[in-house]
């Protein structure tokens, strides 16, 4: 990296005792130089299947965006406003697209055995995303303040309670569920998505099965 540090000597900017230097070193080491946003990809990156990871990411953006608009109006706004109802529909349908793209992405990565070459943790973070996303959508259905939410809460409580988790995670309490839905779980999802994407950029796109450079 070239820096215009002026008076500082090289020893000062690499001083390992300096916490800031250490953090910068960590961040810079996450992804190899130039690989965070490269303008070239290996030649084998030429298939529609690669678009589905990005489609999942874009749908997540639309999910969060429409969710934020719903949040502006408040919990019950969408029952009384036709605009609110439409925004709710956008939120629902972007969620359906999100899951659809994610499942295709998952199967794509499965058939490509995309966990090869030290990429196992990318796969693991992906499965975590799948599971936590399901939990997030479940709390969303519980936060609807309508008949569906009543019924899903009444049925869902038995599953959660049977594991003992119901003592801490009360699906009959829409206030608690709403906060999980709009704060806690989205934070976790976004955080893991960040990790997932850094992992992808760190290792580069997985080469085809049996690809042999020496050939």
């Amino acid at each position, binding site marked *: 990296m070239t820096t215009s540090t002026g008076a500082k000597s090289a020893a000062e900017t690499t001083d390992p005792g300096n916490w800031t230097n250490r953090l910068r070193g960590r961040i810079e080491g996450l992804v190899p130089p130039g*690989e965070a*946003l490269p*303008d*070239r*990809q290996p*030649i*084998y*990156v*030429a298939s529609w*299947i690669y*678009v589905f990871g*990005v*489609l999942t990411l*874009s749908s997540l*953006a*639309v999910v969060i965006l*429409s969710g934020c608009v719903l949040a502006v109006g408040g919990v019950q706004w969408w029952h009384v406003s036709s605009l609110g*109802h439409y925004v709710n*529909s956008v939120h*629902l*349908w972007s969620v*359906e*697209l999100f*899951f659809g793209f994610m499942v295709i992405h998952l199967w*794509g990565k*499965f*058939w*490509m*055995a995309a966990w*090869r*070459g030290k*990429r196992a943790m990318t*796969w*693991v973070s992906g499965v*975590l995303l799948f599971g936590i996303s*399901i939990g997030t959508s479940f709390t969303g259905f519980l936060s609807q303040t309508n*008949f*569906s*939410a009543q*019924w899903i*809460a*009444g*049925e869902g409580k038995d*599953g959660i*309670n*049977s*594991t*003992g988790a*119901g*003592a801490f995670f*009360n699906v*009959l309490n*829409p206030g608690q569920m709403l906060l999980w839905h709009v704060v806690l779980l989205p934070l976790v999802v976004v955080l893991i998505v960040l990790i997932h994407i850094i992992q992808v950029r760190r290792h580069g796109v*997985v*080469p*085809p*099965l049996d*690809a042999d*450079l020496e*050939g």
Partner: protein
Amino acid sequence: MTRDRTPDSHDFPTRRYDLVKEFVITLVVVLVASLGLAAIFSSPDEKPITMSAWANADPNNLVTTAASELAGTTTSATYGAPYNSNSEGQKLGPIPLQKWGGVRIPIDSADLVLGPLSNTTNDPAVSSAVAAWKAAAPEQQTKWAADYVDAIGAAAADGEAATGAGGDPANVAAGDYGPVPALSAGLLALAKTGGLEGALDSAGNFYGGDTTKSLLLLADGAYLEDQAVAQNLAGDQWGMMNEVGNAPGQPWMWLYTFWYQIKPFSTSDNADVEVWALMMLLTLLLMFLPFIPGLRTIPRWIPVHRLIWRNYYRRSAGRP
């Protein structure tokens, strides 16, 4: 699979690729698709069931439910953790997971009736019924309530003959039911005014954000379930993944929902915890699939990757 000999991706020849453009285009596509699907298919929004709707549509059931809460025989009254200690709860084999969670949301089922009536009534008949109930010994209370529930009975259904008064509190045989008929009728009257939810959920704290009590009472009755069954939402109708109307619901729950439809789960008393455990196990299998011999080799046996990377393989086919 032998040792992982996947080469470093950075050593391959490259082609031009615009990640940001790809993201922006997909974002626009998804945004337009979501706006369009929302415009065409909308989203379901059925009004919540109210206590007064239940009281008006099925008053007999509400009265029976109230008496059953007092008798301690409803689903919630006999639930176990996290609401009370009246049952062991579900177990995974010998492991009482449900019990281990603890009674952290304590709910006394009789309070679902007595709580609202003690706080809100200005009807002297109800006030003296509450006082009579509170003055009686527990065995007497239970006997009154259980006798009254039996006396009301149920209408004939599914080939079974009617019992008691056929489910109609107006026709019960004379007997000693103590204050239970007055309490049950009082709850019905309160429900009809539309004030029962508030009395259950926000009495004493003004803010009614927690609907645990209302939902337990509602779910103990038959009205909520009748409405759901009418919309094909019951558990044995794949209800967990379906939404009202033709909306898509949660199709990603299909596997979780599937297990409930088949034996041994469909007939097990511990189905909920068993299905959960199975799903956790399957999720762990999926998560650690890269480390599981056999499973991780499936993509080699069924070579879908030949299709995905066909250009690459064609180009490198000439080489040894």
